[in-house]
Every structure is written in structure tokens, then in C-alpha cells.
């Protein structure tokens, strides 16, 4: 029995509708600034233009200009439009702009992992701006104070117009009224103890780079290049920037040349042999 005409029409329309829905899904996702992928306890989102907030849950999409806010003992995870993963700790206010590819961290703590796609993303606070390209790290704002650390990758942090280059395993801490401090930290311990790592299920996009960094860190610890803080020490650099080979013994060579590469001098020859 051949299918009826209405059945064919319905099937075609259904197929076209499904195709349309499937097609516009990614477009709609691309239009939003971020999508909530995990939300625990009190997580709200809202617009900076209005006072109203709405609870955010998994799947909630934040439009450009919207913020996400977590409460006490709360946390959330977002996937940004640029595929970066950002995790928010408690009492954090966060905003991401697709137009400027910029995170505005007003308060609290975030962990970010931006894929190495070559595009720069800025993390901005009231007093500090950090530029990352393909990096995993964290940022924390306490009033006007700022803490910024890297698990892997590099970043440049601008404080008061001065650019500080931060490498993996380093933290820059800034407190108004004092010069910024840069120091190294124990990366594996951070990864083992930070709730922003341990209490989330999803793998970070830069996990292979994090694993590589941990392996390098462990190797440097084993070889003694990383250890507990010590008193000041001389930055000795074995053979440094200069020739690492013993210099030529020009004296002996010069005399040997004179003695053995030339005809034997007469007894009164002025260049009598003198080996050094």
C-alpha cells in the first residue's frame, strides 16, 4: 500500500521543521555570550540595566551584557562563546562580553581555561587587566586587591600601566598602595585542593596542557629546581652567556708555533723559545 498524500506532506514538513530547528540551534547558541553548564546552590543572572535577577540553571544562556552571580557556598560553570570554560566560586559577580571578548570580574573568584586558538581574551577588574591567549588560571578580586595565577600558558597583566609577564606556576598579587608581587606556587597542590578543580565534573579544554605542566613541575621538583622558599641566593649561571669552553692557551700555542712551525732559530735568534 502506497503512503497517503497527507502523510507525505506531514513527513516532509516534519523533516523541514527538524532541519530548521537543528540549524538555528547553533546560531542561537552563538548569539548568546555564555551557557551555564553547572550551577550549585544560589546562582542568578541578570542585566546590568535592570535590578531584577533570575535563577540560573544548567542550560541557561547569558546574553551579551548579562552577568552571573553566585551566592554563599555556591558555584557555577559557564561555557563561553569562545569555547572557554569559566568556573565561578562563591560570592562572585561575573560578566562576559562577546563583542570585546572580555571577562569583567567584579568580585569573587574564577577559574578559566581558554583553548589555544590564538585569540586574546581579557580578564578585567577595577584596577587590573590580564590578557590571555591559550591559558588556564585563576583570578580573585577582594575589594581593590587582586590575585592572578596561571596553571599553564602565559599571560600579561597590566597594573598601573606597567605590563607584567606571568608564566605557568606564577601568581601576581596586587594590593593597592604596594608594588605587585610575583611568586611561584605549587601547581599540583593547587589542582588537588582547589574546589574550582575538584568539585566540577567536566574536563577543562586545556587538560592535556595542564597534565604536561604538572609533569614538568614534578620533574623540576625531583631535580631540585623547585623547592621551599630559601634565603637570598646568588643567581649563578654556570658558564653564563660567555664561551663555556676553556680559552685557548695562546701563550703556549704562540710559542709552540714559533718553535715548531718555523725553522729552528739560531742561538741568538730574538724570538727564543719561551713556552709560556
Amino acid at each position: 500500500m502506497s503512503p497517503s498524500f497527507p502523510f507525505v506532506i506531514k513527513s516532509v514538513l516534519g523533516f523541514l521543521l527538524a532541519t530548521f530547528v537543528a540549524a538555528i540551534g547553533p546560531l542561537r547558541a552563538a548569539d548568546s555570550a555564555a551557557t551555564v553548564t553547572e550551577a550549585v546552590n544560589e546562582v542568578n543572572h541578570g542585566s546590568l540595566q535592570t535590578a531584577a535577577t533570575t535563577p540560573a540553571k544548567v542550560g541557561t544562556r547569558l546574553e551579551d551584557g548579562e552577568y552571573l552571580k553566585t551566592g554563599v557556598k555556591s558555584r557555577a560553570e559557564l561555557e563561553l562563546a569562545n569555547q572557554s570554560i569559566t568556573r565561578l566560586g562563591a560570592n562572585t559577580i561575573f560578566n562576559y562580553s562577546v563583542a570585546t571578548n572580555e571577562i569583567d570580574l567584579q568580585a569573587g573568584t574564577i577559574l578559566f581555561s581558554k583553548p589555544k586558538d590564538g585569540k586574546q581574551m581579557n580578564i578585567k577588574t577595577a584596577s587590573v587587566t590580564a590578557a590571555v591567549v591559550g591559558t588556564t588560571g585563576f583570578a580573585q578580586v577582594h575589594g581593590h586587591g587582586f590575585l592572578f595565577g596561571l596553571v599553564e600558558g602565559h599571560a600579561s597583566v597590566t597594573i598601573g600601566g606597567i605590563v607584567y609577564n606571568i608564566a605557568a606556576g606564577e601568581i601576581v598579587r596586587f594590593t593597592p598602595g604596594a608594588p605587585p608581587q610575583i611568586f611561584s606556587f605549587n601547581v599540583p597542590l593547587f589542582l588537588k585542593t582547589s574546589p574550582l578543580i575538584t568539585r566540577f565534573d567536566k574536563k577543562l579544554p586545556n587538560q592535556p596542557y595542564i597534565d604536561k605542566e604538572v609533569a614538568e613541575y614534578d620533574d623540576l621538583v625531583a631535580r631540585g629546581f623547585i623547592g621551599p622558599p630559601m634565603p637570598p641566593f646568588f643567581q649563578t649561571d654556570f658558564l653564563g652567556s660567555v664561551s663555556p669552553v676553556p680559552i685557548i692557551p695562546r701563550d703556549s700555542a704562540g710559542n709552540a708555533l714559533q718553535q715548531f712551525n718555523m725553522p729552528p732559530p739560531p742561538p741568538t735568534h730574538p724570538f727564543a723559545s719561551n713556552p709560556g
Partner: protein
Amino acid sequence: MNDMKRPSHILCAGLALGFAVAAPSVLWAQVPAAETLQQSVGLRPEAPPPASTTTSDADLGQIDVVQKFPKPETFTFSTSQQFFYTDNVFYTNANLVGSTAYLGSYTASFVPYSLRDWTPRISLQYNMVRYGSAASGDFDNENLAVSSQYVFSDDRAWSWTAAINLSRFTAPHANDHEFYKEVVYDNQIAHVQQLVKNMPLFFIAAYDLAYHQANPADFDRLDNTLSFSLAYYPIPELSIGPVVRPSGRAYFTNTEDQNDRFDFNLSEGLDITWQPCKYAALSVDLTHVDDYSNNAGQSYDETTPGLSVTGTVKF
């Protein structure tokens, strides 16, 4: 704690001081032992490192402050182009021959593995020496060196370096005839000290024991050399340093020209090095050598003002 400017400050200062210690040594070729094992020394950090602290944050977890020590780069390539004048090409006071000179040096070194306190290194070096008005003194030189440095104090002020260097010399105007070769077994203990707190003035001392096993054996000798130098940095990119090197040299092979020969060799010099970046440096120096021998007619002295440009790449 340190800020961004400090590592570059320390790096520049360390490299510049390295040049201050080492760059003139090529011109002080009369006393190879003391500079056989070159070591650059950097400034102390201006502030102590972070105290041993572990902070705990509800969101970040444990932040444990650690100290990182500089790790030697695996590969180093450097070249040094030196132009100098010597008033005694042939190391004899019987008839002084002065000449301008050029020394081109090209070096590659490899660190296969290293620990915080131990750095082994394999190096290859080629040198060419040309005299402006004494071509019979020209020579080429190739070196293969294996060295090991051990730092044995927490402040890294003391180090011990041992090296074996195989060296070959040829005459470029005589179909590259090999006229001299030697193996140098070298041991050096070095110490660095900041003389005045918060002032970039450093004192570097070294004792070097080097045995030269030479071919021809006439040149077999044992060198005992002390080296004392100062390095002052009016600015991080500029170093000024006087050096004094007394050395005792015992020769083991008696010939018609030498019998139980022992020389006291004293060199003094001043070096000024400007290092605008970590890849290049410019040095001017003036060195004077006095060699007093117990064998008549074999004492000599030499004065060498010089200029050198050095380039280095490490990775």
C-alpha cells in the same frame, strides 16, 4: 617577593657580570688556568623570597609558595669577536714584537641533564687568531670540553668545577699543519661575595689547578692560579671590574732552553662591559701581564688593550 622588573634586572646584571669576569680572560691568554672555567655571577635578589607560607582559600584551595631556581638552558650558541693589540706577540722580552690582533671565537654547548646544584656540559669551540703584523703567529684552534659544576652552598656562593679540555692548534699558513695539542685537566673553586649590602659591588675569588698535558711535551705544566676580581654595576647594564691573577707555573720537561722551570705569572686588568640586552655585549679592557721565570731569558711581559663584541643565544 619579586616583581617583573627584578628578573630582567638580575638577568642583565648576571650576564654583564659574567662578561666582566670572562670577557677579558680571552685577552689575558697568558693565564689560561684562572679563566678556564668561566662563571658568571648575578646579583642577589633585592628582597628575600616569599616566606614559607601556605594559604588556604575556600575557592582556590591551598596556595603553597615555592622557590624556583634558574635551570641551565640545554643549548647555547655564542660568538665573540675580539680586536686587541698586544705589545708582545711571541712572549719574549728579547725582541718585543707588537701587533694588532683579531680573535674570532664560535662556541656551541650542550647540557644533557642538570640538577639544581649540578651542571654537566659538553662544548665545542673554534677559534681563529690573526695578527696584523706578525702573520707567523697566526693559528686556528679547536676545543672539545667536558665539564661539571657543583654548587655546594645554599646561597650558591661557592662552586666547584672540574673540566677536561682537548685542544688542537693548527697553522693556517702552513697547510693547516698541527703544531700543538694538549689536554687540560682543570679544577676550580670559586666564591662570590657581595661586599656592601644593597650596593651592587661584588667580589669574586677563584682558585684554579690545571694540568696541561701537551704535545710536544716541552709544554707540560701545572698551573696554580688565584683570581681576585671586583664587579661594580653603576647601572644594571654596565659593569666595571678590576682583576688580579697571580699564578705559579711549574714545567715538568727539561730541555735545552728550560731546566726545572718555574714561573710566577701576574696579570692585572680592568674591564668595562655594556650589555644592552641578553643577546649581546660590548667590552673594552686593558690587561698587563708580568711573567717572572727562574730560567734566564724566559721572563716576559705583555700589555693588551682590547675591544670585544659577544653574541649569545640560549634555548
